[in-house]
């Protein structure tokens, strides 16, 4: 019975992954071909990078919060699996913050003339990447597995606590090249842009969840082998 349940569960997962492939292909087509060029941009067609740049940032935010939640669970339960999940989420968050910076730099080169403007939001995200880089350096510096997990969990909570200040409070408090409240304000995006944008965000979140599951399963297996040894 359990074997049959597991088989149907695997078939469902495979079906969802195929749906994700089709979903993202349609999103990419809609973003590049279907969406009309946006007004008020130096190169109007370049506004389409927003369908990838902002979802990357939103996915990174969700992953940073997930890392902190698993870190908190570890501190409460002292279960190494939660520590593994926290670390995997932090690694994924760093990757998506990096993708946000890269896509943002491409946009900045065309729109504002140079790849790097020392804009407050650009600098804040780089600071966030450095905070997460320090998280991994900290982990490798502590040889004792339990001690490493406890200190890393505390640090992960600190990293997540800095995130709202660096990505939202600070850029809204000082003048920035980035527009403010484009996504949630009524005059920010028209309906076509809004639909493609949210579909892209859902696709990016699903893709990141899949990569995260793969990474955490692999790390979980490594942990089991480590315990067995």
């Amino acid at each position: 019975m359990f074997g049959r349940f597991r088989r149907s569960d695997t078939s469902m997962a495979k079906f969802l992954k195929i749906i994700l492939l089709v979903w993202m292909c349609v999103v990419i087509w809609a973003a590049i071909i279907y969406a009309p060029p946006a007004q008020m941009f130096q190169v109007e067609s370049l506004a389409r990078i927003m369908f990838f740049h902002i979802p990357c940032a939103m996915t990174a935010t969700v992953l940073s919060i997930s890392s902190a939640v698993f870190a908190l669970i570890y501190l409460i339960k002292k279960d190494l699996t939660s520590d593994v999940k926290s670390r995997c989420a932090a690694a994924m968050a760093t990757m998506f913050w990096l993708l946000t910076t890269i896509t943002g730099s491409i946009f900045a080169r065309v729109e504002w003339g140079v790849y790097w403007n020392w804009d407050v939001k650009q600098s804040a995200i780089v600071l966030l990447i450095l905070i997460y880089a320090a998280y991994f350096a900290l982990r490798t510096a502590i040889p004792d597995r339990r001690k490493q997990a406890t200190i890393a969990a505390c640090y992960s909570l600190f990293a997540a606590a800095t995130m709202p200040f660096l990505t939202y409070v600070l850029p809204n408090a000082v003048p920035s090249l980035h527009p403010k409240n484009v996504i949630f304000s009524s005059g920010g995006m028209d309906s076509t842009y809004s639909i493609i944008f949210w579909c892209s965000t859902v696709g990016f979140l699903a893709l990141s969840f899949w990569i995260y599951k793969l990474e955490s399963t692999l790390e979980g297996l490594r942990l089991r082998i480590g315990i067995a040894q």
Partner: protein
Amino acid sequence: MNEYYVLAVVLAIFVGIWLSLWNLDSKIQKLKSEMEAEHDEHDSR
């Protein structure tokens, strides 16, 4: 024409990433089931 070229490149990159993930997923699931079978066999002994 230029937009279709960009579309082809982005789609190729995404499909490449998706296929790599699919392949990796199959390998990890196989490894997981092998480890579980080994574990069950060890338990039954």
